């Protein structure tokens, strides 16, 4: 077994000052990374709220606010604000949406839900023809990039995507 050297001050130890200097430098770089991660998390770069976490898409028929970044098995919201004054509003979600997200609740509940080749169609009634908004409470069931489409009131589908972190 190798014995540590005896220093001029009488201490028998391996101080490895060069290693310590390098470690202290890396430690401080680590703290800087911590600070960057905290700021990015506050901005919403890792999902769960914050200005960056939600993406707003304007279409002819509605304003869609969907999560840009989400977390696996974590609750999120997808909001659709209707623009035109109709008696019936429809929201069609592509099959890929159901493959990734579990819909936990819809506020308000749709008057009718139908399924087809293009996915699931949610129909809402608005007798006052004064617009309104719906909120889908969703929970991601898989990790990675989720690409899906949403069509409002029969308009061409709008491609949407969410990065789901593990």
């Amino acid at each position, binding site marked *: 077994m190798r014995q540590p050297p005896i*220093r001029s*001050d009488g201490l028998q*130890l391996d*101080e*490895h*000052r060069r290693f310590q200097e390098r470690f202290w430098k890396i430690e401080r770089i680590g703290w800087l990374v911590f600070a960057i991660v905290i700021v990015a998390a506050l901005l919403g770069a890792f999902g769960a709220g914050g200005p960056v976490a939600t993406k707003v898409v304007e279409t002819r028929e509605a304003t869609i606010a969907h999560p840009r970044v989400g977390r696996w098995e974590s609750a999120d919201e997808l909001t659709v604000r209707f623009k035109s004054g109709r008696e019936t509003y429809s929201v069609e979600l592509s099959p890929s949406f159901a493959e990734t997200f579990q819909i936990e609740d819809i506020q308000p509940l749709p008057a009718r839900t139908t399924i087809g080749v293009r996915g699931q169609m949610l129909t809402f009634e608005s007798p006052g023809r004064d617009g309104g908004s719906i909120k889908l409470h969703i929970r991601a069931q898989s990790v990675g990039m989720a690409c899906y489409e949403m069509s409002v009131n029969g308009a061409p589908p709008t491609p949407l995507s969410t990065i789901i972190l593990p």
Partner: protein
Amino acid sequence: MAQMTPFDLVLLLIIAETTQQALLGDDFSLTTATLLIIVLFGVDIGLSYVKEWAPGLARYLDGAPTVLISDGTPDLRAFARARVSLDDVLTTARQEQGLERMEQIKSAVLEADGKVSIIPREKG
């Protein structure tokens, strides 16, 4: 670790709780718990062998001691970089060695485990 403040203890408990959820999720079966304990012990034993075979790597895993006071002369850079104050050293000197003043300290070493060792000057 040896110089743990109450906040350090709270931090440790919170980290343990957070890590436990990430490791186990909602699986509370005895099988998972047993497997996890075996894996963690296995990693610990494996690392102890790795450290024996590669002492250079041991420095990265365990850290290295830092001499804070050598022959009565404080290394101010080491104090600053290691975030240790002279008060910390004097407190340890009082508690561990019953020393009253700085002049009575020959050497002080911040050990890899975070404890400060004090070597007093020889009397006479």
